[in-house]
């Protein structure tokens, strides 16, 4: 028994008790067949045609990748915006027009026919109203009851 084994027995009696045997086994004829199986792999590797990459493409690859990335982001973000935005603007335009129409219509409804035609015939500039104009406006648009009730509150 060599000194190493004696030392081992001294520091590891439990380990020394265990019979040093190989608990592993291999399938039958494994080592006989191994080199043939390996040769198949080697042949496949040797016969594989190496793909020669174009040098320019290899150097431009990062730039092409970056450009492709931008194109993808552009197509994913800009294109839907471009196609969807005009429709949304058109819809909001329609909405705005219809609201102003409605306001205009309600304003027109509040004016009597004579005043409406008068407004159409008059020029759009600001004019000072005379006492006669004011009296006519009050006579045609405000009832006597409203005039008395206003006067009573003041």
């Amino acid at each position, binding site marked *: 028994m060599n000194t190493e084994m004696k030392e081992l027995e001294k520091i590891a009696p*439990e380990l020394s008790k265990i019979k040093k045997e190989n608990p592993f086994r291999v399938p039958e004829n494994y080592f006989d067949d191994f080199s043939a199986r390996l040769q198949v792999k080697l042949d496949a590797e040797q016969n594989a045609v190496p793909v020669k990459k174009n040098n320019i493409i290899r150097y431009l690859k990062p730039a092409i990748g970056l450009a492709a990335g931008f194109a993808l982001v552009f197509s994913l973000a800009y294109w839907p915006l471009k196609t969807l935005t005009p429709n949304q603007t058109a819809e909001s335009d329609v909405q705005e027009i219809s609201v102003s129409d409605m306001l205009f219509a309600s304003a027109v409804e509040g004016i009597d026919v004579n005043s409406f035609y008068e407004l159409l015939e008059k020029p759009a500039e600001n004019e000072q109203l005379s006492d006669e104009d004011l009296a006519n406006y009050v006579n045609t648009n405000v009832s006597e009851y409203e005039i008395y009730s206003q006067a009573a509150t003041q």
Partner: protein
Amino acid sequence: MENADREILDKLKEEKTRNLAFQTLVKTYQERLYWHIRKIVLNHDDADDVLQNTFLKVWRNLDNFREESGLYTWLYRIATNESLTFINSTKKRSIIPMNDASEFLLNNLVSDEFFEGDEIQLKLQEAILTLPEKQRIVFNLKYFEEMKYETMSEILETSVGALKASFHHAVKKVEEHLKTRD
């Protein structure tokens, strides 16, 4: 360097004799390398994969072999590295997070139909699996293969002193595990 290794290397350099010389190299070392790998990865199928990868790597790197070390040492170094690469990649691929690969390796061993050890052998393997990766390799090479520290030093690129200390610690840990676990 052994004469047989010298002859293999000389023939590997010649284009005409390269294939035949490589076959000789495989035949000469397949069994020794297999058992070295098997003791690290434990499972037969994994050992077979790693052994094939080892020889493929050897074939691809024949021109890079500078002969600064022996052929045998170079092959063992590649086999060791391939085994550790295999364990680490398995650890990374695993869905269940693993702090170390010992649990996976033990399961692999228990489920391996080509493991025929008895209870005490399984317990010994379990004890060896508690060792850190490098200590485990040192223990296997010294305890089972009875490799000289000088040879081991070339393969693992570690000083003889450090290897002796590593083996000593490994033996004590294995002994401790064998004592405490019934």
